[in-house]
């Protein structure tokens, strides 16, 4: 009756520029020196992780017209740091989040094809779109795309990139020294693509890379995002989800694949997950509480409440009650917080949300800061190594996910203990590799090789 145990996939998200990352911890190191990236990547590889994941942010965040200074600020360029990471690892995939709004297909396609060559077939692309003109102010092709065009542009951008990658079949370079034929055909790389967003033609200049094309990730949770993933992606990166919500999401997205002529094993579902590891469950819970207080410093609590109230709350005592007045209602463009996707939900019904938080505060006798601790991101896994290994295994076996993209809260050592203590337990359970199966990321993710050029169906 029982099906074979699913294998757990694990990946490592380099700690981000948000308050999940605890920079104030004495163990917190540089977020920009390459040694931090090398340590983090080599630890992930020691733990046989599938890949390292980098998020993207192309403009420094602001609040109230000033640069936001309470979180980690500053990050490297994605493509170049991934290429450098490829030099200090052998098997680990390198996944970059790259925007389809402030780039052009020819350039992005050649950067990913180059990264795939330079990593020996380990490149992956998390395709995202940008939602604001705020970020566009850093770019020649800045500007705003309405919601309904964002996914359309992302879809056609990816389609165009696939055509560019497929413009080399893989057998063009013969390099016969005797006859003097380097190329088998003068038409290598020829392409032409015209649609509402792109009108380009010519010859692509990077020969077909080891994976044929990078592994494709998608990270949106909206209906369009789920369809986009079901149609085109190899893996989907989701937000923090409870076990039950994870199962619902998993069933929904896997259920969409058939409509696009695909099978459930062709799309991996990999939620982001934080963790706090202790010697015992009780100790882990204690540490987790301390970490929450580090993540929500008094200043961070006030800043977070300002995002919902949409006004200056600098006089607010974080250890006192929530503001007794209602939030300033505004559309997204009028919010005082800029460059932060999470605040979009605050524009929907800020007064209703504020009332919910007041009710929570009254019911549990919470201060303003304690409310923020309560309502913002919780740790996904808290416990001893055995507890965490059990929870991860259950999540995968019971179809809440195919594995996790772990988000440690300390840079660069936040993964060390997980790799030393949790990974061996997963290996003992027989649900996690003891060595890499293949040489490419696609092989290690258990995805079929890229075959002949496939055409992406129009939106279903």
């Amino acid at each position, binding site marked *: 009756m029982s099906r074979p145990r699913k294998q757990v996939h694990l990946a490592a998200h380099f700690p981000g520029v948000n308050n999940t990352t605890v920079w104030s911890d004495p163990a*917190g190191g540089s977020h920009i020196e390459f040694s931090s990236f090398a340590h983090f990547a080599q630890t992930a590889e020691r733990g046989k992780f599938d890949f390292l994941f980098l998020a993207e942010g192309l403009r420094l965040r602001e609040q109230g017209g000033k640069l936001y200074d309470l979180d980690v600020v500053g990050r490297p360029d994605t*493509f*170049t740091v991934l290429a450098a990471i490829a030099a200090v690892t052998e098997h680990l995939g390198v996944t970059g989040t790259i925007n389809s709004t402030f780039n052009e297909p020819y350039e992005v396609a050649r950067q990913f094809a180059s990264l795939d060559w330079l990593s020996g077939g380990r490149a992956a692309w998390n395709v995202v779109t940008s939602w604001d003109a705020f970020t566009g102010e850093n770019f*020649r092709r800045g500007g705003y795309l309405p919601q309904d065009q964002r996914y359309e542009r992302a879809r056609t951008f990816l389609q165009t990139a696939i055509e560019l990658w497929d413009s080399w079949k893989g057998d063009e370079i013969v390099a016969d020294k005797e006859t003097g034929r*380097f190329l088998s055909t003068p038409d290598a790389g020829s392409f032409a693509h015209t649609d509402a967003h792109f009108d380009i033609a010519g010859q692509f200049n990077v020969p077909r890379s080891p994976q044929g094309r990078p592994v494709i990730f998608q990270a949106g949770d909206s209906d369009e995002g789920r369809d986009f993933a079901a149609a085109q992606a190899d893996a989907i990166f989701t937000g923090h989800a409870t076990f039950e919500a994870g199962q619902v999401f998993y069933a929904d997205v896997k259920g969409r694949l058939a409509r696009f002529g695909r099978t459930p094993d062709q799309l991996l579902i990999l939620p982001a997950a934080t963790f706090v590891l202790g010697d015992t469950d009780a100790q882990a819970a204690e540490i987790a509480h301390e970490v929450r207080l580090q993540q929500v410093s008094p200043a961070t609590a006030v800043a977070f409440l300002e995002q919902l109230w949409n006004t200056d709350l600098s006089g607010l005592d974080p250890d006192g009650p929530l503001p007794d007045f209602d939030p300033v209602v505004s559309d997204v463009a009028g919010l005082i917080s800029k460059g932060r996707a999470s605040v979009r939900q605050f524009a929907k019904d800020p007064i209703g949300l504020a009332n919910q938080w007041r009710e929570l505060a009254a019911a549990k006798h919470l201060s303003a800061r304690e409310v923020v601790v309560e309502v913002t991101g919780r740790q996904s896994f808290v416990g001893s190594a055995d507890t965490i290994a059990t929870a991860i295994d259950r999540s995968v076996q019971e179809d809440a996910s195919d594995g996790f993209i772990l988000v440690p809260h300390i840079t660069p050592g936040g993964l060390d203990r997980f790799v030393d203590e949790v990974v061996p337990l997963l290996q003992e359970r027989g649900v996690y590799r003891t060595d890499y199966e293949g040489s490419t990321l696609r092989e290690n993710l258990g995805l079929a090789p890229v075959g002949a050029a496939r055409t992406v169906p129009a939106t279903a």
Partner: protein
Amino acid sequence: MPESQNRIHLAVALDGAGWHPAAWREPDARPLDLFTPAYWVEQVQQAERGLIDFVTIEDSLRLQSDDPLEPDARTDRVRGRLDATLIAARVAPVTSHIGLVPTAIVTHTEPFHLSKAIATIDYASTGRAGVRVQTDTRADTNAHFGRREIQPLRREDVAAIASPEVQQRLRDSFDEAAAYVEVLRRLWDSWEDDAEIRDVATGRFIDRDKLHYIDFESRWFSVKGPSITPRPPQGQPIVAALGHATVPYQLIARSTDVGFVTPHDAAQATAIVAEIRAEQEAAGRANDTVHVFADLVVFLDDTREQAASRRQRLDERAGADYTSDALVFTGTPSELADLLLDWQAAGLSGYRLRPGTVPHDLARITNALVPELQRRGAFRTSYEASTLRGLLGLPRPSNHYRDHDHDHPATTTTTTAADVA
């Protein structure tokens, strides 16, 4: 180590299997490895063993063609390449002293992206990054982007290169390059070095007064800033450009740290250096260091006859005599050393050598030319600095935004030795 009077700087220009079109057919060539990381790592490590100042890596946003204006249909040449910036990034962690200077096409790319990319290579190499900026107004490249109206250079334009109309178009394209470099430089300075404070007491990670909007406006693009990447280890990575005429010399003079030029004799070298110095003066940069490197394609063997016969064999295989924008040198390492020292009096800081074939000519540069120059006291015997700026004798510059009124950025961010004295 004090810079000796006649000490020269050497760069090596990497491109495919070497600069001769038949280089890939040589017995020691590895044309099937051109797209592997090992190929590039080995070449740069070889150059590093020769104590070379830096390597450049060629690039383009189109397939190579022998025709300067259009695609060709040739199948007997190396075609296809990897992104040079990513090659440099891949090589950075596995080298330790040599500078890494990829080519970037400025006409179609985003200065914001390139600025953080070069800054990131500077972090990954702990201070050895640079970038060589290049314009490309070809019609075929433009069609790969389809984003802007560009009046491409046609054959009739080349024939009338001196006409005011064509000169104006060249100037426009290089003015855009200068604006692009200005954005790179401002973004590198948009974080002061001590902007990251990690003040636990107040919860502040940065002192936001030490981050700066660059508010750059031009007719091609506007960029707000600050960069998302903190100021790189060198402060300002090296900016380089290649020029063959007055308009690009102006770009070299007003925007770069290193200019590559193509004199064919010492007198031309003297004239070009004088022209660049005059343009520096006109741009208000008379006191800034702008190193002028002469480019040479080199075919090196133990005897002049061997070198000549090897080049002849290559030419026969290519079906044409090899010509280049740069002087093509064919001879012994000792004869090349004579030439380099002879031309140096023109005011050149050094040379960018383009190996005719790889690995042969690269190995002759590092194993024969360099020892010959060392014997003559004209080249370093060990790396004297750990950054590219250091190898080029350039101090780490102060930050433009620290020294100036933040609300009124000056038109240039370049700094001089006096600024940091």
